[in-house]
């Protein structure tokens, strides 16, 4: 049981180390929203003169009439007690910020998973092939693909996919998340529990027709997000393949007469994947930023759209809530990836 306990110890250490990061991000959000030059309430009105009573009301409601240090402490206390406040925007006025985030978050999770899936399915094989055929045409092609797809604006790729598959070929719905009255687990049907992710819900419901519809709506946004990320995957896997192919243990396998195919897949590829997991942790920031752009392109009702809506409807509490939520998720994910990496590769724990 020595191995298990040391992993637990590692996980605990990482969790404690993650706290300062969360703290720094929360402080950064506070600084950006309250301290930076420019009045947030006036700024949100974008140069137009807001009605004076609205400004005063918002100021008192947000506690902006208090000294910054008091505001900061209140802000931290509210977040750690799970109180993200009540929306002050036109659209969701009076509803708790938390409930809006909870309805939108599953959509973004679905999109992020879809994107990661596409990126892995496309990027990892490309990286392996390129790494195994170093400096041949395949390698050059994959490197070019990796460089080019990575710098294509995600929204532009999304519009092109939308145009080709949604408008010209009419194979897939061009726009948006599946909406309507008959989404999975909608009132007439009964589910034991509900996740808000339509692909998962339709499986819980046991309705394959619903599952197909959910997937068809998810396909284009995931493809957009995933293809852009796949360039990065391919490059990382390729670099790690080069390292493991040149490593002593592959050399030893080659000396023992292990066939080339087995060397590449069993020895080089499996070991090349380990560092990829750790690098993945840093890419979640890019994944989330990409998800916002993808959501906007496909009018896909996720967290990113919620943030954009709250910015246009001048909803300070909602903006703050969503951004804080993003920060918390990112800290949690990087923690999870760290622990995952350590459980795959015991050397990391040393």
């Amino acid at each position, binding site marked *: 049981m020595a191995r298990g306990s040391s992993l637990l110890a590692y996980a605990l250490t990482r969790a404690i180390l993650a706290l*300062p*990061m969360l703290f*720094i*991000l929360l402080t*950064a959000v506070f600084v*950006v*929203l309250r301290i*930076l*030059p*420019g009045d*947030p309430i006036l*700024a*949100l009105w974008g140069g137009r003169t807001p009605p004076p009573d609205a400004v005063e009301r918002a100021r008192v409601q947000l506690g902006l009439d208090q000294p910054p240090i008091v505001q900061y402490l209140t802000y931290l206390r509210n977040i750690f007690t799970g109180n993200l406040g009540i929306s002050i925007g036109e659209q969701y006025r009076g509803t708790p910020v938390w409930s809006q985030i909870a309805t939108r978050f599953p959509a973004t999770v679905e999109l992020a998973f879809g994107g990661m899936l596409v990126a892995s399915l496309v990027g990892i094989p490309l990286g392996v092939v390129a790494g195994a055929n170093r*400096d041949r045409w395949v390698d*050059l092609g994959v490197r070019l693909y990796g*460089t*080019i797809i*990575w*710098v*294509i*604006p*995600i*929204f*532009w790729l999304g*519009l*092109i996919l*939308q*145009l080709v598959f*949604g*408008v*010209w070929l009419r194979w897939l719905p*061009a*726009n948006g998340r599946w909406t309507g009255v008959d989404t999975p687990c909608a009132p007439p049907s009964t589910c034991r529990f509900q996740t808000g992710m339509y692909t998962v819900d339709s499986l819980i419901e046991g309705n394959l027709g619903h599952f197909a519809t959910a997937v068809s709506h998810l396909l284009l946004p995931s493809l957009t997000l995933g293809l852009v990320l796949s360039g990065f995957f391919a490059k990382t896997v390729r670099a790690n393949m080069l390292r493991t192919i040149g490593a002593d243990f592959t050399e030893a396998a080659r000396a023992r007469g292990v066939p080339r195919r087995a060397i590449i897949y069993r020895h080089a590829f499996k070991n090349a994947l380990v560092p990829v997991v750790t690098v993945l942790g*840093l890419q*979640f*920031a*890019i994944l*989330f*930023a990409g998800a*916002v*752009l993808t959501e*906007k*392109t496909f009018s896909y009702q996720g967290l990113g759209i919620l*943030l*954009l809506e709250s*910015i*246009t409807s001048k909803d300070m509490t909602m*903006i703050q809530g969503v*951004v804080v939520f*993003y*920060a918390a998720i*990112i*800290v949690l994910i*990087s923690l999870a990836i760290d622990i995952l990496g350590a459980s795959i590769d015991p050397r990391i724990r040393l």
Partner: protein
Amino acid sequence: MAEKPRRASLADSLRRWIPRQSILGRILFPLIEERRSLPAVLTWLGIGIVIVFVFIAIASPLLAPWDPYAFVDGPDVPPWTNAPVLANSTYFSFSPTPWMNMTAGQAIDGRDATSRGINDTVVVSSFLLRVFRDAVTNVSYVILLDGRATTPGHYLGVEWSADGGATWSPRTAIRTFNQFVRVDLTPLRSWNLASVEPGRFSLRFTHLADTNTAGQVALNYAAFHVVWLSFWHLMGTDPVGRDVFSRVLVGTGTSLQIMAIGVFAALLVGFPLGLFSGYTGGRIDKVLVLVMDSLYAFPGLLLAGLIAVLIGKGVVNIGLAVTVIYIPLYFRATRSHVLSAREELYVEAARALGAKPGRILWRYIAYNVLVAIPVIFSLSAADAVLTAAGLSYLGLGVQAPTADWGLDLSAAASRISVGIWWSSFFPGLVIVILTIGLSFLGEGLNDIVNPVLRRERS
């Protein structure tokens, strides 16, 4: 065999002016001497693309064939063609008349313009057509009479004039109700731009009846249709009729400005911080690393967007907002280079000779770290172009009517669903070309200034 005397190459003549071990020399000489190698080819390609874009940004006012801010043509004109554009307008003025509710006759809003007296006439004019080119191919007017509100036996007589009412055509009787009647005028005379300008074209309506019984005629809609051939546009026009090509050219400047401000400001902050943090180490280093890593982990686009909302939406402000993303990047890269350079023997030797910390930091460490900067610089520049475009696309960046690729793309994005692709495709395409150029430059330079990588390759 005696060696032939070699002709002095470009590299030879450069060697006289640029020392091989200077920063410029360490980048330039491999680029010239190994110009056939893949990294050098990529680098030269990247340099070429960047130079072309900088040239376009500077010369765009001269290069742009149209005014990028003016409505110069019909909306959504496809690229590479003179497309027929339908200009369609109803009247905006009419003569004094016994007709009632004349303004309501302009549109299908459920109300009609009506006349109760037989032989009541009215002249309507000021059809506000947007015809930009003297290439009118088809002219017609369209009338809709309301059958329910019209007494049986009563109908409308229509005459038209193309010279402001000086001469009138023979009268046409409209006896069709509840559906649009389109009367083609194209073959009746030659049409030019002047005759379809607002005020030149008029219609005269007369209330007619078969018998002399009292009754009314109800006119629901009257409009003037002109089909004209648009100008030729390389990239078509956007949804409000601005030339996409001109806006793409002028938008280059916006994009490069934001990129330059963002990346330079990040360099100015991140590089010294990284030098200082990496060289001194200790508690300050730990705190700085933690702060920078946290910022790096947060989606930069969102952070920059929030800052942009708060500090305003000018080009400079967006540039500064974008900076926030790249400070951690420069900080991390500089710091990691400093950490490895700090342990080198030559630094130790300098320390042993009694060099002051400031001199060691600048002369022996910073100088060597600087070589790595062009790589990070061009890679982050590519990313900054994408971020700036993303901000504008989300509506958090520069504001209309500034010519900006992301903004134009976003304004035209909704047209994709009806198959109008050019007004969003081309702004995106130039973003791709510029970012590919910058990242080729960065990746090529990376292989060139990193001798270890090069040795591995050969």
